[in-house]
């Protein structure tokens, strides 16, 4: 049986991406191959590692555990959508830089997306236990998470201040 192809239109980082895709295409592959946004990583393909985490309508989801056809008509934010191409980095990205919250970097886009909503909604400095809970679905094999947690905490401190009042 030849596979059906189906029209899909997803708003990715504010840009409409439309294509005819096979139903079995995972959202993560749609983002990487069809939309050309390779910041989102494929770690395990089995819902275990969190490297593929993106925001679907503003909430973190694993893009390897959703078919592209299911995202039709929805909004997706990837790591490329955190900061403008030519502008300053997102405060969370700045904080990962300042705290050395990464080594090889493979898991970093997933960690950034998993933590981004937490940081944006934070009213003042986040507690470590809330940070660790938010990133508990993301595996990192380099850092031991200590600097990752420090980076997210730093970004939350910044989020609680008026914009422009702080730098790394």
């Amino acid at each position: 049986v030849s596979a059906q192809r189906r029209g899909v239109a997803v708003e990715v980082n504010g840009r409409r991406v439309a294509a005819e895709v096979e139903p079995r295409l995972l959202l993560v592959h749609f983002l990487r191959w069809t939309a050309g946004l390779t910041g989102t990583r494929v770690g395990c393909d089995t819902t275990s590692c969190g490297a593929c985490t993106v925001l679907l309508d503003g909430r973190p989801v694993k893009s390897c555990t959703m078919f592209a056809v299911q995202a039709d008509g929805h909004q997706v934010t990837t790591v490329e959508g955190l900061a403008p191409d030519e502008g300053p980095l997102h405060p969370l990205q700045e904080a990962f830089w300042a705290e050395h919250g990464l080594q090889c970097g493979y898991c970093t886009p997933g960690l950034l997306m998993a933590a981004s909503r937490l940081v944006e909604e934070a009213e003042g400095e986040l507690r470590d236990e809330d940070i660790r809970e938010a990133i508990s679905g993301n595996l990192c094999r380099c850092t031991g998470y200590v600097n990752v947690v420090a980076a997210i905490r730093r970004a939350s401190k910044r989020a609680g201040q008026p914009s422009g009042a702080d730098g790394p």
Partner: protein
Amino acid sequence: VTRYHRPERLEEALALLGEHGFDAKALAGGQSLIAMISAGFLAPEHLVDLNHLPGLDGATVEEGTVRIGALVRHADLEHADAGLAAAAPLLPAAARWISHEPVRNRGTMIGSLVHADPSAEWPAVALALDARLRLVRTGGERWVPAAELFLGPLTSDVEPEEIAVELTLPAAPPRTGVSVQELAYRHGDYAVVGVVAQLSLDGDDTIAAARTALFGVDATAVRPAEAEAVLLEAGPAGIERAAALAATAVNPTSDATASAEYRREMVPVFYARAVRQALERAVASRAATDGEASG
């Protein structure tokens, strides 16, 4: 997967499942289904996406009955409003143990029941609370009590042409406390041993209802009836005896995470912890109620 269907009416979805039988799978949250397809354990030709069906995303409390629709996500129950949390306190208590936030944002409670993983939280909650699942097929429907739903690991009494559209469970009485105790090597991993408990008190502080279930320690979730009977009969003094009985109600197996012997040793420990905490919370809720009355 070669065909994807996005019905907008329940009748349409039922007709598709009736037509394709074992070649089709209903897709709600997909957090087990898609992972199993990716891992090569399942290869359904047809996917019937339930996410565009109307009226399945409600979680309501009416006249002492809690009603949960097929599209209610784990995260919806984790962040249940005050009314729902009061009527079914085990729902938010258990939801926060499930996997991680991105999975909780997609996965559904009813999908988890149909999936019937013996190490998952929801089957135990459904069993403890006497939940009933409404299964609909073209031209008919039936209600299945949780006690009859789980047939074995990853096997539930749901036919390929049926859709589980909603579940109901009785609202908790006012003086109720709950607890979920789980042994897992990392938060969000499947349970090595898990216990859910909901205890309700009479006016004179005796235990009026004990609803408990164990998971991760048998082919399905298990409700230890004899242990509950001891709690009703002997009260707090019977907790150790009930916990020992709970261990005799299950049949754990060994796997990479733990041996059967270790699981059996841990059952009474976690059962006693869950019952004690639920009891403490029931007593505390009573104190709070009294405080309101006198204040």
